[in-house]
């Protein structure tokens, strides 16, 4: 075989190996609790469970991506919704670990809790390997979440005022149905249409379900989406008031979808029709 042919084939091999072992090229350290990562095993976990949506290169271009909405995360940009760190910062290892375990509600991202803890830690290393940002920067300190005060009607009323003042209703609507005036033209950071959360569905949030999770969502903002951070606009007390008020928006007849509810129209549709 000619030298040229041999060289070309071996270059091809090198290219393929490099591209496909891209995540390994920058080995990532991960620490969650007492567990540390095994990057090689993480790559196997990624290949088995994640490739179909997130793609071989971690850019959210898996074969199923065209059929999904919301789209799978592009790890190469290192922009994540569910973090405990302020907007613009990388997530902590535990943020990624918990997102993977919890899944993302109302999306195609399943809860990977059935994987062992070690497997989840390993795949966090794989996810981090797709972006050099994890090598170049450190995540900022997490937003502190002070202890939650007891729910009181005065706090809820203050929260309601805050909802008006901060103009959350512009996207989320006056009743939190996700039907505010700006809602229909919202686009995410990749210019894809996106809808604001509808509190009246009574569902879990994309990034959790507890009051602490809700606090964290609007204090850190959901990076990559239109949801901004309000960290510099509210004090922690005000933030808790807002959390308690937002919970009152989550009461809805559709909360537990029973057979009875499936056959009758939801109440807000009835209202619109009767108007």
């Amino acid at each position, binding site marked *: 075989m000619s030298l040229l042919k041999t060289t070309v084939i071996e270059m091809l091999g090198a290219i393929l190996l490099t591209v496909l072992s891209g995540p390994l090229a920058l080995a990532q350290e991960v620490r969650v609790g007492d567990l540390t990562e095994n990057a090689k095993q993480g790559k196997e976990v990624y290949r088995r469970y994640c490739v179909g949506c997130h793609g071989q290169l971690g850019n959210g271009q898996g074969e199923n991506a065209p059929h999904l909405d919301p789209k799978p995360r592009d790890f190469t940009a290192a922009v994540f919704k569910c973090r405990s760190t302020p907007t613009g910062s990388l997530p902590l290892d535990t943020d990624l670990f918990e997102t993977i375990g919890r899944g993302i509600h109302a999306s195609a991202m399943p809860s990977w809790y059935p994987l062992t803890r070690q497997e989840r830690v390993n795949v966090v290393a794989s996810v981090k390997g797709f972006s050099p940002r994890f090598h170049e920067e450190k995540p900022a300190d997490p937003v502190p979440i002070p202890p939650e005060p007891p729910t009181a009607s005065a706090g809820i009323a203050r929260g309601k005022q805050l909802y008006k003042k901060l103009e959350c209703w512009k996207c989320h609507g006056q009743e939190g149905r996700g039907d505010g005036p700006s809602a229909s033209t919202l686009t995410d950071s990749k210019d894809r249409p996106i809808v604001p959360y509808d509190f009246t569905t009574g569902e879990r949030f994309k990034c959790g379900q507890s009051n602490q999770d809700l606090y964290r969502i609007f204090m850190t903002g959901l990076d990559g989406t239109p949801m901004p*951070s309000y960290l510099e606009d509210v004090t922690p007390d005000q933030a808790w008031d807002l959390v308690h008020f937002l919970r009152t928006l989550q009461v809805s007849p559709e909360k537990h979808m029973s057979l009875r509810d499936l056959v009758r129209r939801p109440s807000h549709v009835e209202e619109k029709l009767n108007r």
Partner: protein
Amino acid sequence: MKLKHLLIVCVAQVVLTWGHYDKHMGATLAAASATSANPAAAFDTSAPAIVTGVVRLDGPVPAGKSISMTKDPACMKMHPSGVTTEDVIAGSNGALTNVIVYVSEGLGDRTFDPSGNAVVIEQKGCRYRPHVLAMQAKQKLQIVNSDPTSHNIHPLPTNNQEWNKSQPPGQPPIEATFAREEIAIPVKCNEHPWMRAYIAVFKHPFFSVTGTDGRFELKNLPSGTYVVTAWQEKLGSVEQKLTIGAKETKTLDFVFKPRRSYGTASLQ
């Protein structure tokens, strides 16, 4: 013969691994080399040169599209006679506004400390003022909300951190900074989809944004040979080479050709 193959492969592997993350690694390498360069070789202000000129569009000026601000009555109130898009703004003789003219090559390894002054971008009348802003990496940026309605500031960089902060009316200015060079970072407000700004971040201070007369001025340039680039958000970039001596003033005009189609900016 076989060892040579192995060497070629190893080199290819290394090159491609670096190349795969070229953008970011390049920035890291540049930053590393910049910090290690001799600061005494910064630049010689004793004989500053000036480059000035006009940027023009050679061809028909696309008409601005009308923007509907019905999403926010507070915005509508401030513009009773309506507003149009500002993608391409040209004067009667084709003079282009909001073009960033900057030195793209020729400064070598020189480092430049960011100016201590803050640049300000204002949300006024539900638009960004200025529409196009140029600043240095690590320079302070102040974001002000002068409107009676809330905005969120959402820069969408590819070489810097993306963030998204809310700024209700009456809140103090938000301070921000961008660590790396990027030309240019689009900024949007999700609540008001027609709002758009561009922030260009430079490693050096040799940039200028044209005003309504299409005029730019690059001051305090050390003598040397440079490539000067003009960037417009829809028309792309035009480059020109320039050699300038100490204390010289040179004129460098740029001409943009119109594009067949300017795409559809988000208007509503």
